[in-house]
């Protein structure tokens, strides 16, 4: 029998029939010709003749095609499913796009999960990396700010990073003149200045510095001019420049104040300029020149923060080598100012400012990196699962004439579509995230000049990752599909386990990887949470609630002796104690737990080889009740002793225990050598009789143990800044105005500086940074856990759906629902278990990274790890439970009939 198709198909070729339709017509007409042929043979025709006669039914001029041409089926709507190549790139693309959009919408759960996952990854990464770029790489609006560095003298004995950043006048001048690596050097500091508002005096922060500061920074004034080197000449008129903030808040943006003379700390000064909003160097309200004079009594104070602009092309290491030589020489010249074993560090301005917060930021960045990996893993896995589920569809389409290239292209476009949607939502997340992080970053941790906003290169990077992942993981299965014997999935008919594990290994590996990453993330977050809790549970040795502290900056030249100070404070403290709501008011030179003045000490009659160190605090008799320190032995200072500046002392428990052991401290004499060396008002014979011992209160920092401490009457010297501490019965900050009024009542020329509740101060300076790190880590770890749950869910759900048949057989053979439930959960638990194990090992290996961020607990804290493992296990098994329940509801009859 002839092959009729050979004769029929060419007659149809001019029509644009779909391959399916063409095949049908060929079959039907072949059947017809066949019937005809058989009849002719039966009628006695030879096969050749029969063939010729049968084919003669086709008349001249291909009437078949002509009659078929007007029919609709010869103009088929674009055959989307088979995707036969037509050679029209754009229309193919359009077709694929429409098809992809439709298939994506048909699986709203899958698409939403994939888009959300990508968006979370992009959003978090863009937020954090933008913030890091803004804070660490490019925070300053100043000219060549990236070349500006600071010099730190790091004490190698100290566990903390950083080091001394302030230098004496002579140190500054020698570094400036002898170094070869700097273009220009500036020195500066913050100094409180007093400004008379007419109502009373207020404290402003002055940024004082060398006269070349404004030239160095290169930012023009908003109004008027900046400070010029000429303003630094000894005969020049004293001038100052105002910050935008002060100009707006105090002067309502009045431009006419320019050129007016202001009395600052009693000195008439000309306002020559107002700076733009972003110019906030030293967080100052006003800027002015401070002369650098070797002859000044202040010259020996380490008062100058040195900043230098590296010559172009000079590296930090070259600069360090150059500066180290100078600093080593200075250390030989002034050994008392340098630690025994120190190193010189040259750090960028941003690093110098941000200090340890930099590590917090990097830890968060690492967390976000992990999150991004989890997100990518998740999306990859979802695409792999979907690709396997669609093998059959691909096989059919290929059988219907879709070229392999076209199939691959199709899958790629689907992935791209997800990527685009993820990118759009991710940008929205990033936008919100930037706003959120800008609000969350603790004040004072980052340079005031930094503007946290979306960073374009960062966004492009995140988007690239977002595109690469789906495309890559969309491509792998697509290529595999294309390579594979496509009929195989058809035969398999998509049932049983065989199909399910074809790409199972890659999928499982991805889930295990995700679980491991999430363990790392969560344990990091957990350690920070536990560390923060430990920090908050630290026993300060006193109650921080209801304590108001304030600095009382006494004008230079006035109140310089101990007697002057006593005159002022005796009066002020009496008035404060009389205020309603005040239970105790005291004067002090330090605010616990933030450290104090250190000195070498001796106890008369005791010999020792090593140095004995202690903190000494100049205070009045009410300091002990105000701080609520418990008296352990003897008595505290009396009013008469304080007023008479008698040489008596109260020591803390640490001092008694450390230097006197079991001996009775009462009546012993303690010598505070440091008091002899105070330049402006040294204390002769600084030997004090110990009259009492009080309980310890933290006096170095909240993270360090209590140092031995000596409390002595505050008027023995006129040196040092003085603070007041007020114990209140209500909210401390509500008392600030009353305290200010009482100060002005004693002397209208004295301001109140840095007044706050102690809790507020601790929140800002102690808790803010760890809290920020903890909150960020917790948020990202939480998101990571959700993503992992989605990942586990998608893989288990998919495997269950492929195993419906097997489950049906098992149930038909008598397996109960609980058995099936266990079977599915076991599969999930295996993935989780392996992931958890790897995650734990990785966390332990990575503990070093987070070690410097945590305090009070071990970086291998077993409780944290136990909780984290439990969390992941519960989350992961919950994600398995839904598909497991679905498996138990498989109807064995239905599952088997589907064969």
């Amino acid at each position, binding site marked *: 029998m002839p092959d009729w198709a050979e004769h029929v198909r060419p007659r149809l070729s001019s029509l644009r029939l779909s391959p399916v339709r063409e095949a049908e017509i060929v079959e*039907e007409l072949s*059947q017809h010709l066949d019937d005809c042929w058989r009849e002719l043979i039966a009628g006695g025709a030879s096969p050749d003749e029969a063939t010729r006669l049968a084919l003669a039914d086709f008349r001249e001029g291909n009437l078949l095609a002509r009659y078929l041409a007007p*029919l609709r089926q010869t103009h088929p709507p674009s055959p989307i499913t088979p995707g036969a190549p037509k050679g029209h790139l754009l229309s193919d693309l359009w077709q694929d796009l429409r098809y992809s959009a439709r298939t994506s919408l048909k699986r709203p759960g899958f698409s939403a999960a994939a888009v959300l996952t990508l968006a979370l990854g992009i959003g978090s990464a863009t937020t954090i990396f933008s913030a890091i770029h803004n804070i660490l790489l490019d925070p300053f609006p100043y000219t060549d700010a990236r070349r500006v560095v600071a010099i730190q003298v790091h004490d190698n004995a100290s566990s903390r990073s950083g080091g001394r950043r302030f230098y004496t006048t002579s140190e500054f001048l020698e570094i400036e003149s002898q170094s070869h690596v700097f273009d220009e050097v500036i020195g500066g500091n913050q100094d409180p200045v007093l400004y008379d508002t007419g109502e009373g005096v207020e404290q402003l922060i002055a940024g004082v510095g060398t006269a070349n500061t404004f030239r160095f920074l290169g930012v023009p004034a908003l109004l008027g001019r900046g400070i010029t080197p000429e303003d630094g000449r000894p005969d020049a008129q004293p001038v100052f420049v105002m910050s935008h903030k002060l100009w707006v808040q105090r002067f309502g943006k009045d431009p006419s104040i320019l050129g007016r003379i202001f009395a600052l700390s009693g000195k008439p000064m000309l306002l020559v300029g107002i700076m733009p909003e972003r110019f906030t160097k030293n967080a100052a309200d006003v800027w002015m020149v401070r002369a650098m004079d070797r002859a000044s009594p202040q010259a020996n104070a380490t008062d100058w923060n040195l900043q230098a602009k590296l010559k172009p092309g000079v590296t930090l290491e070259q600069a360090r080598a150059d500066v180290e030589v100078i600093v080593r020489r200075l250390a030989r010249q002034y050994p008392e100012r340098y630690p025994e074993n120190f190193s010189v560090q040259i750090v960028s301005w941003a690093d110098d400012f941000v200090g340890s917060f930099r590590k917090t930021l990097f830890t968060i960045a690492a967390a976000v990196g992990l999150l991004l990996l989890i997100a990518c893993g998740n999306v990859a896995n979802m695409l792999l699962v979907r690709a396997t589920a669609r093998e059959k569809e691909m096989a059919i389409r290929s059988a219907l004439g879709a070229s392999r290239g076209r199939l691959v292209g199709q899958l790629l476009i689907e992935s791209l579509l997800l990527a685009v949607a993820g990118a759009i939502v991710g940008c929205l997340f990033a936008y919100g995230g930037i706003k959120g992080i800008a609000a969350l970053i603790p004040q004072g941790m980052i340079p005031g000049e930094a503007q946290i906003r979306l960073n374009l290169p960062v966004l492009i990077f995140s988007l690239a990752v977002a595109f690469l992942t789906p495309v890559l993981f969309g491509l792998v299965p697509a290529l595999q599909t294309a390579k594979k014997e496509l009929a195989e999935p058809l035969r398999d008919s998509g049932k049983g386990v065989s199909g399910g594990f074809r790409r199972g290994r890659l999928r499982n590996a991805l889930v295990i990887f995700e679980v491991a990453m999430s363990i790392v993330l969560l344990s990091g977050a957990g350690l920070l949470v536990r560390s923060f809790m430990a920090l908050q549970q630290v026993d300060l040795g006193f109650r921080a609630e209801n304590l108001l502290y304030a600095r009382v900056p006494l004008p230079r030249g006035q109140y310089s002796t101990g007697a002057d100070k006593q005159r002022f404070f005796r009066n002020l403290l009496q008035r404060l104690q009389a205020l309603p709501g005040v239970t105790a008011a005291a004067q002090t030179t330090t605010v616990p737990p933030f450290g104090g003045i250190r000195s070498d000490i001796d106890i008369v009659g005791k010999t020792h080889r090593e140095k004995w160190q202690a903190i000494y605090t100049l205070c009045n008799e009410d300091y002990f009740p105000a701080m609520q320190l418990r008296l352990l032995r003897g008595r505290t200072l009396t009013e008469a002793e304080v007023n008479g500046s008698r040489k008596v002392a109260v020591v803390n428990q640490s001092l008694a225990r450390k230097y006197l052991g079991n001996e009775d401290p009462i009546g012993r004499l303690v010598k505070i050598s440091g008091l002899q060396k105070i330049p402006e008002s040294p204390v002769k014979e600084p030997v004090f009789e110990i009259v009492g011992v009080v309980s310890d209160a933290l006096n170095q920092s909240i993270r360090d143990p209590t140092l031995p401490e000596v409390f002595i009457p505050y008027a023995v010297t006129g040196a040092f800044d003085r603070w007041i501490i007020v114990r209140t019965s209500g909210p401390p900050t509500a008392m600030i105005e009353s305290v200010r009024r009482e100060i002005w009542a004693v002397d209208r020329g004295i301001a109140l500086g840095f007044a706050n509740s102690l809790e507020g101060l601790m929140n800002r300076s102690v808790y803010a940074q760890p809290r920020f790190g903890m909150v960020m880590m917790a948020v990202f770890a939480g998101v990571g856990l959700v993503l992992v749950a989605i990942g586990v869910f998608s893989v288990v759900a998919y495997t269950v759906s492929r195993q419906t048949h097997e489950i049906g057989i098992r149930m038909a053979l008598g397996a109960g629902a609980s058995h099936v439930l266990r079977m599915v959960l076991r599969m999930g638990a295996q993935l989780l278990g392996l992931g958890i194990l790897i995650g734990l090992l990785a966390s332990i290996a990575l503990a070093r990274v987070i070690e410097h961020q945590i305090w009070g607990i071990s970086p291998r804290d077993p409780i944290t790890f136990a909780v984290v493992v439990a969390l992941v296990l519960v989350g992961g098994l919950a994600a398995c439970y839904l598909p497991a329940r679905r498996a138990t509801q498989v109807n064995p009859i239905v599952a088997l009939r589907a064969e």
Partner: protein
Amino acid sequence: MTDINTRALDRELKRGSAELLILSLLDARPRHGYELGKLIHTRSGGQLTFHIDSLYPLLYRLEERGWIKGAWVEKPQERRRRFYKVTAEGRRVLAQQLRTWAAFVEAVGRVTGGDHA
């Protein structure tokens, strides 16, 4: 009766009377294309012949209009065949066409009969 020219039949197809033949043959029971062609040929005493290249386009057209419906039917030991049957819509059209045809034949009869009468 002279042979009806096949070209003339094709014109007829276009006008639609050929549709009537198909629909009425299928109205009795589902049939495949070859059977339809053969039935028309034999019942017309060889006067009407559908060629393969006009029969199938006609079937497809009727199918597109929704008047008939084709379906592949497999029988044991045989190749599958496409059988066509009339749809409800096709039945309505058939009734309508039969009425029109009857009216036409009657009118023609009256006119020609009148001449002879």
